[in-house]
């Protein structure tokens, strides 16, 4: 794959090193700051190019039209968004991933066709939630084009899912429980017969709008509600 990384800060630098480990990739790291480029060249050589990752004329010179992927990871959301849009709309690069620095901008990036977004704030938040024993659902990854997301679910005591077989659960359309990790840490690809236990961790692919339905399925019931396990 030909991959163009825009932004030579810590994120772009670390990413480029990882990508260059795989010799099948052709990787170009672009940065607009001459002194940053000089420093990075000492370590990464000709893979680092000095230029503006949002400027058509420059991007033509590095052959962006044949890129398979653009990853825009500067510390500035406007550069990241415009780099993705120029790549997609002018050069028809099939896939663009952008870093979102201000979590408020996440929605805009999605609306404007950035295929995936990476946000340090969201990543830390997700990790925080995973570490809380009472967490129910944590989004792990968005599969934007299909309107799907990958989520981590945690079966709570007394929840509708606890003690029941997957086939007996009322799952929202398109929801697929792909992996069950038991309390002992063994991952298992579930079947309809798999019985979910309290404390199980589930990795599921779901439609983006069915988060709350899934949450209810694994969440502990409110104190005043009748026991939903026996409801029907």
């Amino acid at each position, binding site marked *: 794959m030909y991959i163009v990384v825009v932004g030579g800060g810590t994120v772009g630098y670390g990413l480029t090193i990882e990508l260059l480990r795989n010799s099948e990739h052709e990787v170009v790291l672009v940065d607009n700051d001459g002194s940053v480029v000089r420093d990075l060249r000492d370590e990464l050589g000709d893979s680092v190019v000095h230029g503006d990752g949002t400027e*058509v004329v420059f991007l033509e010179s590095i052959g962006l039209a044949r890129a398979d992927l653009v990853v825009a990871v500067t510390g500035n*959301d406007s550069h990241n968004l415009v780099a993705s*849009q120029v790549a997609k709309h002018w050069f028809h690069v099939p896939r663009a991933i952008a870093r979102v620095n201000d979590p408020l*901008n996440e*929605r805009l990036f999605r609306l*404007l066709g950035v295929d995936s977004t990476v946000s340090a704030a969201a990543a830390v938040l997700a990790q925080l939630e995973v570490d809380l024993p009472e967490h129910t659902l944590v989004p792990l990854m968005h599969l934007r084009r299909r309107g799907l997301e990958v989520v981590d679910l945690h079966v709570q005591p007394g929840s509708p899912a606890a003690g029941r077989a997957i086939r007996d659960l009322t799952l929202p359309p398109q929801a697929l429980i792909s992996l069950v990790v038991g309390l002992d840490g063994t991952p298992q690809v579930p079947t309809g017969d798999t019985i979910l236990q309290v404390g199980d961790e589930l990795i599921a692919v779901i439609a983006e709008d069915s988060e709350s339905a899934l949450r209810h399925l694994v969440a502990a019931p409110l104190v005043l509600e009748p026991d939903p396990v026996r409801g029907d």
Partner: protein
Amino acid sequence: MIVVIMGCGRTGASVAARLVSDGHHVNVIDTEEAAFRRLPSSFNGRRIVGSGMDQRILEAADLRKADAFMALAQGDNRNVFAAQVAMHIFGVRNAVVRLNDPFRGEIFSRLGLRTFSPTVIGADLAYRALMGPAPVVEHASTLPEQPETAG
């Protein structure tokens, strides 16, 4: 019409003055408070100090109620970013963007922004000045006297 302008440089301040004299309501955003000195004394809108890239600042400028947004700051990417926030997050239909890079102008006008490029306009004027008819130069002694500076 209610208009929010981001960037109170010479262009932003002149457009704001013109809109106000036409009877429109204008709120102006700039990162530097000093920039608001360019506004005429007749300016009766809000002056907001902050970055137009920050949705909270756009909110403070009452963008939600605006009929139009004009991104007239220096950076192309900042302008195009703020204009897209105005359109897609705040639902403003009419978004004008100053873009120095004509290529970016073409991309984003296809995406529904009203773009203009000072670079293209400037180059065009320079070309016409070069190729157009030469001005008639009168003999130096017949040049009109400098007008007295008005009080």
